[in-house]
């Protein structure tokens, strides 16, 4: 139990000693943390690719060699470079090993741990092919990053509140409670120009000020961890890697607006995040950093976790609150805004996970520091979950104003297979695509809006020439049709009609007036839907029409899918010049659509072909092509 700031500081000092190796202190500077600390990413991507096996094997080696006192083994949150997982980092030296399999552990242990010789073959490879030992410091995936929200992700044990305290955890809460009035806190937030990281970019300080000015006794602080954007996993990573930063920030928010109760609304699809967060809340209560009379200041604040149940619309603020109340997650008209009448009809603020994770740093380092990062109207950093057709998928945090080219090519290694960048999609089903022409635009809230997309919560999906933009728009509309709550008709009926038109086009049954009709419908829905989900649902279509109208026309007029995705209208053909008549395609065709023999060559019978793509996948000479491809 920590009852005073002095006790908090004493624990911080003790932990700083124990974690000194990780702060870059060479071995020998402290006895407390042992002579070596090994961190293994234990969540998300790395966990799925087998990091638990690596962890267990390391543990076995440590016990076998009786080195428990000398070597600390820690399972951490996401280190970011998911594509190269499982990842582990060895201190001192911060040596990162990539794609570690349990069978590699014996070698690492013998060579690095016992003999002091790092295993070079498992280092991360950089763009120029060089192998980098201290990837976190020198690999181009990391060098352009600036970590604020993700500062502790992958460097501390998310289940240890002590480690969080060792990296200045709960210092911001202590500072706020001891040295600042609620008004000072709100002023700092306003001065920092922090904008909501959930997507819309509303100024956080202003939101807090509205709620603080309400003369009500009961107010609520909510955290939106209903990360529903497909392709986004930033919030998941923060909750799994650094849950205490969110807890601390919510307590700060509670103090600022005068609330003693918070709710975190988490997706049920994130069981690890729920478990980590719940454990962290219990620990914070046990330490007295949540609950009654925190740090002896008389301020009380507690948190409750509420699980979502699979409804994208619950990421919308009023729908989220309706869902916490136990109803169907349908949005409400605003005003009244939640800051006036929100959860259980009381004044409520809602911020997203990444926004909260940024707040303790702002309190400790000051608004000026935060303002020194980013662009004129978008301050600070933004976390992106980079996925899709990209060499290094993963999680990056960059200063606002970084260009897409820097993220896609410099940090994430470009498009695999020598293919061309076609577009990047941000903002999920509410956003749009950014074409190659805009690769050098600095990314911030306003530039993305001008490009017809939006920041969104931070999913960034890269697409190459094999992605059909009409099909992608149809994919997003399929999503919104399914997730529309049905309360207002523009969204309920309008998105369905748009989906039908897109389906027609991808099946080669579209007419030119369909494109016109799509545009009119899209604008009407944008202007008339009740909530953010409906208002932004047409964005994927509008942005695809803006940059890739020729693809729509190819589907409608020529009945061709240039990317070779839309099965109804695409056709495979065998290029007789490339074909070596090996007959592998014929053997693999499940419907016997390929006829011919080794003497006369092979042809595909289009009436029988089901376009499964097996022949193309199996052909050793790349002789099977999409008929509609450019130049074919």
């Amino acid at each position, binding site marked *: 139990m920590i009852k005073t700031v002095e006790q908090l500081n004493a624990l911080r000092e003790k932990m700083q000693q124990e974690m000194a190796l990780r702060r870059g202190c060479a071995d020998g500077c402290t006895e407390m943390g042992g002579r070596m600390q090994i961190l293994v990413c234990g969540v998300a991507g790395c966990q799925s690719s087998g990091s638990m096996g690596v962890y267990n094997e390391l543990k076995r080696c440590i016990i076998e060699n009786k080195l428990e006192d000398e070597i600390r083994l820690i399972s951490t949150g996401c280190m970011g470079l998911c594509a190269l997982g499982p990842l582990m980092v060895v201190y001192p030296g911060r040596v990162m090993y990539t794609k570690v399999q349990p069978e590699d552990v014996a070698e690492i242990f013998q060579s690095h741990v016992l003999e002091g010789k790092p295993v070079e073959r498992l280092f991360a490879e950089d763009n120029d092919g060089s192998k980098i030992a201290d990837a976190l410091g020198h690999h181009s995936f990391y060098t352009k990053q600036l970590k604020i929200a993700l500062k502790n992700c992958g460097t501390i044990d998310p289940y240890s509140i002590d480690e969080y305290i060792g990296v200045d955890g709960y210092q911001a809460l202590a500072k706020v409670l001891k040295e600042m009035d609620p008004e000072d806190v709100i002023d700092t937030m306003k001065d920092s120009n922090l904008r909501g990281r959930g997507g819309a970019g509303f100024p956080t300080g202003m939101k807090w000020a509205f709620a603080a000015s309400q003369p009500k006794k009961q107010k609520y602080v909510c955290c939106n961890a209903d990360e529903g954007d497909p392709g986004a*996993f930033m919030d998941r990573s923060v909750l799994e890697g650094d849950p205490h930063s969110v807890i601390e920030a919510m307590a700060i928010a509670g103090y600022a607006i005068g609330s003693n109760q918070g709710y975190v609304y988490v997706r049920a699809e994130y069981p690890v995040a729920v478990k980590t967060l719940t454990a962290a809340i219990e620990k914070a209560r046990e330490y007295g950093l949540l609950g009654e009379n925190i740090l002896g200041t008389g301020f009380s604040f507690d948190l409750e976790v509420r699980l979502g149940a699979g*409804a994208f619309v619950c990421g919308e603020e009023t729908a989220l609150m309706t869902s916490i109340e136990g109803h169907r997650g349908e949005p409400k008209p605003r005003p009244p805004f939640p800051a006036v009448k929100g959860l259980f009809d009381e004044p409520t603020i809602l911020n997203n996970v990444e926004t909260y994770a940024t707040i303790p740093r702002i309190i400790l380092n000051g608004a000026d520091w935060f303002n020194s990062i980013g662009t004129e109207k978008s301050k600070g950093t933004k976390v992106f979950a980079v996925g899709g057709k990209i060499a290094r998928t993963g999680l990056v945090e960059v200063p606002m104003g970084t260009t897409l080219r820097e993220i896609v090519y410099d940090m994430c290694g470009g498009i695999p297979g020598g293919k061309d960048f076609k577009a990047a999609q941000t903002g999920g089903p509410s956003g749009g695509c950014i074409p190659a022409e805009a690769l050098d635009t600095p990314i911030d809230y306003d530039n993305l809006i001008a490009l017809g997309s939006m920041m969104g919560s931070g999913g960034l999906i890269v697409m190459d020439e094999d992605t059909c933009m009409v099909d992608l728009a149809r*994919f997003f509309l399929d999503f919104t049709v399914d997730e529309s709550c049905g309360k207002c008709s523009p969204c309920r009926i309008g998105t369905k009609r748009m989906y039908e038109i897109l389906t027609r086009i991808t099946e080669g049954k579209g007419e030119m007036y369909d494109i016109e009709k799509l545009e009119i419908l899209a604008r009407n829905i944008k202007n008339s839907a009740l909530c953010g989900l409906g208002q932004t649902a047409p964005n994927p279509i509008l942005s695809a029409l803006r940059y890739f109208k020729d693809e729509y026309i190819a589907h409608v007029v020529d009945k061709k899918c240039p990317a070779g995705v839309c099965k109804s209208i695409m056709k495979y053909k065998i290029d007789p010049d490339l074909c070596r008549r090996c007959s592998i395609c014929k053997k693999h065709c499940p419907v016997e659509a390929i006829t011919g023999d080794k003497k006369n060559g092979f042809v595909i019978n289009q009436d029988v072909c089901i376009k499964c793509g097996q022949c193309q996948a199996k052909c050793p000479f790349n002789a099977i092509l999409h008929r509609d491809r450019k130049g074919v």
Partner: protein
Amino acid sequence: MANVCNGCADALAMEKALDEVIARYKGTKGPLIPVLHEAQAIYGYLPFEVQLKIAEGLDLPLADVYGVVSFYTGFTTKPKGKYRVSVCMGTACYVKGAEAILDKFTTSLGINVGDCTEDGKFSLDACRCVGACGLAPVVMINDDVYGNMTPDKVEDVLKKYEDVQEGI
């Protein structure tokens, strides 16, 4: 319970567990969704009788309970398989070919999306983004995650579960 068969003993135990859940949440703010989550964990799904019991227990109209159950995709009124196959249909997975993987599962298992095999062993769903986009395309079977999936790997993955000997 010497006179009660195994099936009935299970049913009684589940009912008791549900009673405890309802009692625990009754009187709290917004209890319905947490209760439904726990009820689904007990029964595996939310049949009509369970919804009725929750409505009575929490003093809510049955229509409200059913309305909430049918609104959220996380709640199901149909039993799921022993092994729940979920093919992620998030954007990252989709652009990397999730649809072909889902197709392969439907043919391999011989069931449609949303259905369960006759022996109750496998059910198949297309699910929302599971947040493992770095490994796209991703398939989950219960809590196991399979990343970088291809249609070719489907049979091998399914075999892992078919080989499991039915325990006692």
